[in-house]
């Protein structure tokens, strides 16, 4: 296992590359989901506001 992790002595170049890739993948997912959720919430608030105003008039 340790032999595999050392990657023939290239571990200090190889594993940071994989870690950074993992971070970029995860952050992109998180940011996209957050952005879509905020857009949906904003739209919902707007629609509910318009409906409430319609109810009053």
């Amino acid at each position: 296992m340790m032999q595999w992790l050392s990657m023939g002595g290239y571990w200090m170049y190889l594993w940071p590359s994989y870690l950074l890739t993992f971070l970029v993948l995860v952050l992109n997912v998180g940011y996209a989901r957050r952005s879509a959720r905020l857009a949906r919430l904003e739209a919902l608030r707007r629609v509910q506001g318009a409906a409430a105003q319609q109810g009053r008039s």
Partner: protein
Amino acid sequence: MDWTWFHRFGSPPHFYRIAGKLIPWFAWLAALTGVAGLIGGLILAPPDYQQGEGYRIIYVHVPAAVLSTMAYAVMATAAGVGLIWRMNVAHAVAASCAAIGASFTFLALVTGSLWGRPMWGTYWQWDPRLTSELVMLFLYLGYMGLRGAIDDTARADRASAVLALVGVINLPIIHYSVDWWNSLHQGHTLLKFSKPSMPPSMLVPLLLLMLGFVLYFAAIVLVRSRGEVLRRERNARWIAELLGAPS
């Protein structure tokens, strides 16, 4: 030729619905191909006869580099479609590609640099391939900066679309830089169908990871584009119907 499908896809409610159905498929297929590619690349593939285990950076560097140019091509195409046909959905897709493309360009540059240190003896060289990739990162940042600087969405769409289209000139430069100039970067490995440069045991995991990255990109772009469409169409009747409120 019947262009109904094209205009139908440009309809925001239709796009929103179709994208919502496609996202889980793309996401699951991306996860499956990604895991299979990682197992193949990190465990099953043999070490390289020259670079030893160090070559395994290829399994993240090449998919990131491919995705960085592909995202730009998709962004510029969508921006062009938006500009010519005044299609709001196309502008939403273009805007959604930029940050993802920029992050993968950054990733390609850093992983390339980490590969370059043990193989070339340096983290960075002003090599044509590396420099043109860096120019692309600046193009992405410029595109995002321009969009952010203009408050009016329609004007931001038009101005950023022109910038995206001008930047397309950089794509063939990135691709052919290793042929046109003396480059420290290795030549084409994958686009040599007549004489493959890699044995299948190394090539298959790489192709799987490239496919996984492309599917991942498709899923993420669609998630972001749906949000962007919701923001742009906030006053439309279909949004009220979609969210279940009386319109």
